[in-house]
């Protein structure tokens, strides 16, 4: 269906609208996701597909599918997206900022819709990377702020690195399954799981999913991402992007799950993250950091439940995603409103805001009750299902106890975090002189949280009509088989219910003991992998690069030549030795040409003379003669084009040499030591020998059929030209030529920049890159008049 792909790309097109005068009123773009939300709502129960070949020879296609799982996510993406965009228009003081922010957000929305609706592995990866990039732009939105910049860079490095692993994993998966199309891979679960590359492939894919979904120990980018404006934190770093990882697990679970490796890694990583996130959330004092760590925690739970392939697990996952998206987005919006209305997000300085900000408080209240998992809200259902899935389905024996216990403890911590958020911000008596400037925010800013809160309240009350079909089709899409789903808030006194009661009670107890609990937690080591990251990217990498640069790029041309020649000698020589190729065969000397032989002798004599002459000018002259002789050789062997070009090149090179040597004394006045000279002679001789052997070998060994025949035959009929060389250059292999002229231009820019950069400039702190910019930018700016936006 064409409408599907239109829907996916509509937000990106709307982002373009923000370049028009529409940018003066950016709130209007919220209509786009709003309309899309209604569109996707109308698609419930109607699976649709869209397929257009993109790079069919590589198996990459624009292949989209809207199944139950995708539909649930598209509703979350467009629904919360609408509220966030409305919020955005009031959040920013400057309209320009709001427009720029909305544009990034809309591009992200297309990428996110793309991830969930793609039915081609490569396509998923492309959209996946776009989300990382837009996330980078959004985190670094306030680029004047050092924290925003480093947070953005950190997020990009971690999720981008995970993206690389994911790409490798997806390529392996496609290789094993013989296709990148989900529909064609589906039947091959058994074969994929049994393949010898299954383990590396799974680990790579998990690395991608775990970094994106902020699992321990890769979670540390998410709290750093809180430097983003709050609407971005709400949308990307709680409701949608961080769920891309767990979404991918769900998408691929039918192909990959049901192995000890899958179960073990998901359970261990998920549960560790679940508990760790809850504990660390309590240590935080910044509202957004608290929410970020509790998001990390719940993402851990969403990973852990997917360890089994049971129906319970799938239902728990789907409801967990929906419930969390609703209440956590509401809480993030609340945190942003508090920041906006009071001017601080430090929980120690807040309190009593329910009087000042009643509407914001109402939204937060419902969301917190849902987060704590108190009936009859959606959060309760979600926590209940988590416990049910921890109990019932066949998991490795070792986890029979651990999973349920961890589920209870993790949920209890969530309760404590939620209650602390609500109590310390809105209810408890504030410090006497605190925030008398506090005020309620504009309706656009509190309406979002309230709508989400009401939804989280209403949905469970209308389970059979609203949620059952949605959840049911999503579960079907995950498990690839039909199951009847009927959700109930109350199923009698069951074990999960008892567990829920325990965890809520425990959570409330911990809440009352929170002062002592937090003090205790603060004494524990944080086990934060940021230290490793800092060391790797701020110490090891730059230091290593500096070390390598000083060793390899020491500025001495003589050394560069030795390195280049040495590598050629070593690599080519080793290959020739290993390959044991023939050097001479009966045809080697059949085309012996006496005139060419004479030219060759002259060439050799010239080369020797060039080395021994006393002045630079004479050396240059001899080089020129050598070039002319070489072009004579080309002409003798019937390549007039090559000969002519070579001659011209020689002429220009000669001039360049003369101009360059202008800066040097004419006589070679430096005396080389015996050792240096010996090394030079050795390298030169070895290089000459290697090339000689290479040419002999190339002549004596035919590997495959020569392609020249094809060119000769087709130059006239296909290329309409008699000069085969030219037809190859401008037609058959024009892409190569295109690349070469780009290289030429780069070289010209490099030469100009180098010439402008005098040795004395380096001391003054001039940089090559700056010079390159100066060379390139003026013509580009003048000609194309690109507006370099401040970003």
């Amino acid at each position: 269906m064409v409408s599907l792909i239109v829907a996916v790309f509509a937000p990106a097109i709307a982002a373009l609208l923000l370049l028009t005068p529409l940018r003066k009123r950016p709130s209007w773009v919220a209509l786009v996701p709003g309309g899309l939300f209604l569109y996707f709502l109308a698609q419930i129960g109607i699976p649709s597909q869209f397929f257009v070949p993109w790079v069919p020879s590589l198996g990459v296609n624009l292949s989209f599918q809207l199944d139950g799982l995708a539909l649930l996510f598209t509703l979350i993406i467009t629904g919360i997206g609408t509220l966030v965009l409305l919020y955005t228009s009031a959040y920013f003081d400057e309209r320009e900022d709001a427009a720029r922010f909305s544009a990034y957000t809309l591009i992200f929305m297309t990428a996110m819709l793309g991830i969930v609706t793609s039915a081609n592995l490569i396509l998923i990866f492309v959209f996946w990377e776009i989300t990382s990039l837009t996330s980078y732009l959004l985190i670094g939105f306030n680029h004047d702020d050092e924290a925003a910049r480093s947070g953005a860079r950190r997020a990009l490095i971690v999720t981008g690195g995970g993206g690389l692993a994911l790409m490798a994993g997806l390529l392996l998966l496609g290789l094993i399954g013989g296709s990148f199309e989900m529909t064609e891979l589906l039947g091959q679960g058994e074969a994929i799981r049994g393949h010898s590359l299954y383990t590396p492939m799974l680990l790579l894919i998990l690395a991608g999913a775990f970094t994106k979904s902020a699992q321990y120990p890769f979670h540390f980018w998410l709290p750093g991402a809180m430097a983003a404006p709050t609407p971005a934190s709400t949308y990307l770093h709680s409701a949608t992007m961080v769920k891309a990882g767990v979404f991918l697990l769900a998408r691929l679970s039918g192909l990959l799950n049901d192995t000890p490796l899958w179960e073990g890694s998901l359970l261990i990583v998920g549960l560790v993250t679940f508990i760790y996130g809850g504990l660390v959330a309590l240590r935080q004092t910044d509202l957004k950091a608290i929410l970020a760590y509790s998001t990390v925690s719940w993402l851990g739970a969403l990973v852990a439940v997917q360890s089994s392939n049971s129906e319970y697990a799938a239902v728990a996952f789907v409801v967990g995603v929906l419930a969390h998206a609703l209440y956590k987005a509401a809480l993030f919006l609340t945190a942003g409103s508090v920041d906006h209305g009071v001017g601080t997000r430090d929980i120690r300085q807040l309190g009593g805001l329910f009087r000042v900000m009643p509407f914001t408080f109402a939204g937060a209240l419902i969301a917190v009750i849902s987060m704590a998992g108190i009936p009859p809200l959606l959060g309760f259902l979600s926590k209940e299902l988590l416990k049910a899935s921890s109990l019932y389905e066949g998991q490795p024996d070792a986890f029979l106890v651990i999973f349920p216990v961890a589920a209870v403890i993790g949920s209890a911590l969530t309760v404590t975090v939620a209650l602390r958020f609500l109590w310390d911000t809105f209810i408890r008596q504030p410090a006497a002189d605190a925030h008398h400037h506090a005020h309620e925010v504009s309706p656009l800013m509190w309406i979002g949280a309230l709508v989400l809160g009401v939804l989280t309240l209403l949905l469970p009350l209308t389970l059979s009509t609203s949620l059952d079909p949605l959840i049911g089709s999503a579960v079907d899409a995950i498990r690839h088989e039909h199951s009847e789903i009927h959700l109930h808030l109350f199923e009698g006194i069951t074990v999960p219910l008892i567990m829920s009661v325990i965890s809520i009670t425990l959570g409330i107890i911990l809440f009352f003991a929170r002062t002592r609990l937090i003090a205790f937690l603060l004494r524990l080591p944080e086990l934060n992998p940021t230290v490793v990251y800092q060391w790797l990217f701020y110490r090891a990498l730059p230091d290593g690069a500096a070390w390598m640069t000083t060793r390899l790029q020491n500025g001495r041309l003589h050394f560069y030549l030795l390195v280049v020649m040495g590598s050629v000698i070593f690599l080519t020589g080793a290959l020739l030795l290993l390959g044991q190729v023939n050097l001479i065969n009966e045809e080697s000397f059949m085309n012996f040409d006496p005139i060419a032989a004479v030219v060759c002798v002259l060439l050799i004599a010239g080369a020797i003379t060039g080395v021994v002459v006393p002045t630079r000018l004479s050396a240059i002259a001899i080089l020129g003669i050598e070039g002319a002789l070489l072009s004579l050789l080309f002409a003798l062997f019937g390549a007039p084009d090559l000969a002519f070009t070579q001659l011209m090149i020689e002429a220009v090179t000669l001039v360049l040499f003369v101009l360059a040597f202008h800066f040097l004394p004419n006589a070679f006045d430096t005396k080389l030591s015996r050792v240096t000279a010996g090394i030079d002679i050795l390298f030169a001789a070895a290089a000459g020998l290697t090339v000689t052997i290479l040419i002999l070998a190339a002549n004596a060994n035919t590997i495959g059929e020569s392609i020249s025949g094809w060119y000769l035959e087709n130059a006239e009929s296909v290329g309409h030209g008699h000069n085969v060389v030219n037809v190859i250059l401008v037609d058959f292999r024009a892409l190569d030529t295109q690349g070469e002229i780009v290289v030429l231009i780069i070289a010209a820019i490099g030469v100009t920049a180098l010439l402008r950069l005098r040795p004395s400039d380096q001391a003054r702190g001039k940089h090559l890159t700056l010079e390159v910019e100066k060379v390139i930018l003026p013509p580009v700016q003048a000609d194309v008049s690109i507006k370099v936006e401040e970003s």
Partner: protein
Amino acid sequence: MTQSIFFRFLARLMMPVLILFSLFLLLRGHNAPGGGFVGGLVGAGSIVMMTLAYGADEVRHRLRIDFRRAMFYGLGIALIAGLIGLVVGAAFQEAYWWTPFFQGIGRLEISTPLLFDIGVYIVVFSVTSAIVMDMAEEGEREDH
């Protein structure tokens, strides 16, 4: 830069000849030795001679061509030649030919490969000239 009257005269004499010859090479390249690359080099040869005779500043002043800008135009023309194939046909760089007949002139062969070759000509011409002129300018500055 030289003060030799003879060389200066020769450079001025040769410049139009070389440029015409380079255009000739460019246009005949598809069927006989020549083409955009070597044509561009020959054309740049004229600039090189002028630079050696009169100095980079003088040449820059008289020609009023910014080669650093011109090389991007060349690249643009080559790209456009490639894009025509993508838009009209199936693939980037796919060749298209247009052979109109003119009374008194004969049949012309205009094609995207020719357009591409013109782009290559301009790039090679400009890059070579730009590098040589920059080097020469640097040398002159050193002398002062």
